């Protein structure tokens, strides 16, 4: 551990813009991530505000997904992955020994790049989290939860006739909204989305973006995207990552109109892909 921190101190850097907030939902301090010997994230400090949408952008391989997966400890599932530093979810360090990851992931949900509905019925997909966490006491409550979750994702009308049909029969966009419904059914506080629209066509993308916008009233959302237009459309703040470092964080409008850091500017003007 000591050696690792030395390594990061050797190339210290300042994040440009406003990474820290007064009032935050998640606060990330001095986080380094290693895959075996290889460091993927360098000393990231970032606050994420409550009921805000923050988007993470940057060239591919810069560590956006890795960073996002730290926030609900999904990196625990990768043997060689090692996270150091501190990430607080409302004053609780989520890497503390006393933290139960099951409960953490109920509070911090995740939606993935490729829609990944379970090979079960639509109903069972949405009910999955509720069953695991024992959120409902009887079938009636579960039915209601499924219905309300699907309604919040604007999917209810499309699927209410076919709740018991396999979820894999839905279109890509519907599948991704189902995955979002599945995530919000456990009523998380934060939703992490890793390029949720990259496998969707433009129309499905627009629907999902609209959904993100609506959800942001009740949830804190962290979204990784490779589309700068999407970041501009859905998020209030934008964080720019480069080679594992958090280069610049600011209000989305500032990042896109008036970037302070040269790397950010090069990226958003298309000089770094």
């Amino acid at each position: 551990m000591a050696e690792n921190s030395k390594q990061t101190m050797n190339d210290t850097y300042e994040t440009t813009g406003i990474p820290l907030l007064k009032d935050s939902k998640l606060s990330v301090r001095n986080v380094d991530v290693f895959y075996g010997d290889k460091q993927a994230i360098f000393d990231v400090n970032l606050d994420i505000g409550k009921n805000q949408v923050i988007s993470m952008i940057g060239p591919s391989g810069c560590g956006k997904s890795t960073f996002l997966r730290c926030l609900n400890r999904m990196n625990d599932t990768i043997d060689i992955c090692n996270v150091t530093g501190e990430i607080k979810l409302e004053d609780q360090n989520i890497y503390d020994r006393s933290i139960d990851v099951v409960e953490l992931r109920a509070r911090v949900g995740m939606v993935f790049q490729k829609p990944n509905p379970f090979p079960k019925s639509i109903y069972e997909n949405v009910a999955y989290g509720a069953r695991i966490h024992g959120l409902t006491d009887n079938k009636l409550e579960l039915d209601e939860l499924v219905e309300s979750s699907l309604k919040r994702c604007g999917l209810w009308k499309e699927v209410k006739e076919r709740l018991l049909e396999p979820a894999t029969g839905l279109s890509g966009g519907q599948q991704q909204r189902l995955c979002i419904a599945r995530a919000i059914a456990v009523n998380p506080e934060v939703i992490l989305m890793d390029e949720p629209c990259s496998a969707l066509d433009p129309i499905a993308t627009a629907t999902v973006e609209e959904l993100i916008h609506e959800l942001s009233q009740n949830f804190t959302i962290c979204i990784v995207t490779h589309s700068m237009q999407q970041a501009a459309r859905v998020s209030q703040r934008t964080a720019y990552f480069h080679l594992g470092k958090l280069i610049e964080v600011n209000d989305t409008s500032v990042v896109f109109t008036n970037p302070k850091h040269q790397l950010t500017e090069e990226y958003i003007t298309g000089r770094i892909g």
Partner: protein
Amino acid sequence: MTLSTLFIAVLMGTVVSYYIGRGRSHSIAKPVGGVRNLATLPSYYATLMSLWALLPALLLVFLWLVMDGSIISGLVRSELPLEAKQLNPDSLGLLMNQIGNLAEGVGTLDALGAEYKPAVDRLIHLNSISATAMPVLVMLVMLIGMILGFRTIKADNNARYAVERVFNAVLFISSSIAVLTTFGIIFSVLFESINFFQKVPFMDFVFGTHWSPQIALRADQVGASGSFGVIPLIVGTLLISLIALTIAVPVGLMSAIYLAEYASRRVRGVIKPALEILAGIPTVVYGFFAALTVAPAIREYGDGLRDWGAENGIGWLATLNVSSESALAAGLVMGIMIIPFVSSLSDDVINAVPQSLRDGSFGLGATKSETIKKVIFPAALPGIVGGVLLAASRAIGETMIVVMAAGLAANLTVNPLEAVTTVTVQIVTLLVGDQEFDSAKTLAAFALGLFLFVITLALNIIALRVVKKYREQYD
């Protein structure tokens, strides 16, 4: 010249043709401005020329070996005295055998009579002609092949396509050998089974509850005895297979889950090969393990239980009777034997479940075992069922363990502590020793074989269907 020297000569000729072909193609390349201006690479011209040398010669050897016996014996037969020509086919065959033996210097002419001398002489003469003519002709054909092949080497002739076609044909022939053999076996089994069902009614065979093929040996009872009831054998087979699957499915499945989901790379590297070794142990070894270790152990344990039951006045235990050959012993050992089938197939299908489904489940806060129970297992289920069915058809077809550990007695029972027998074991016992080929007893083996074949074929087809359906889900 013996056959093996001829083969070596042909192979050497092939290699020589290759080098001649290569040299030739390089030399024709020079005037046209190098190899790049040839229609194809020199190695293809060389291969084509060597194929020209090899294949016709090989074909000739093959045809010669197949035909020469019957052609020669046909010629010899025309030399036979008139009365011999009118013999029935069986005695004629015997006679030809005797003539053949004489031609090789075995026995004396006295036994046959002097009138057969011309035939024997003719045979000796023809055999020697054949023996000298074949190598000469083969070498000649090879030479012609080489010349024809040599002439194909032209700058504008694309030898690559011809070589491609030849390999295509070779591969096709190889695969059709397997297919044709399968069909041959099926038809012969089918044919003999039909013979059997002319002696024993089909219904008596399929629904009969008494299996005792020995009775049929008594001449007055052939075909009429009705002792070819297959039900006890089927029940025995199913009983043993069921015991085997009861062991193999849970153990195999759980070890597959452990290997796929929990084991570290190092542990996996040890356990997986170890399981595969289990699959490589010859079944006869399992068989004597079952007969010499497991069966006596079960019997001893059962006797102990009985004595204990008698002492403590537990009536039903006191009457416990474990035979020294039992379905349980065979089933247990067979179960161990098919563990690797279940585990390695299940391991494959579990690994084929996309990581994204695991991530989705973990992301919702599910633990590892919840994810396995609720997502991975259901997703892999069709594939696992396929694996289990394949293991079942393996268990049904297994013979050695049962012969050694479960006995030969065709008891109609579902008590695993008694001796039972299976379809495969009965096939073995029907055919070992000297048998009259067309007795109902021998033919019964074919009918049993057909029965077994149909059952395992059905199981395999279902299994493959299920596995295929599962594949489509993710590909």
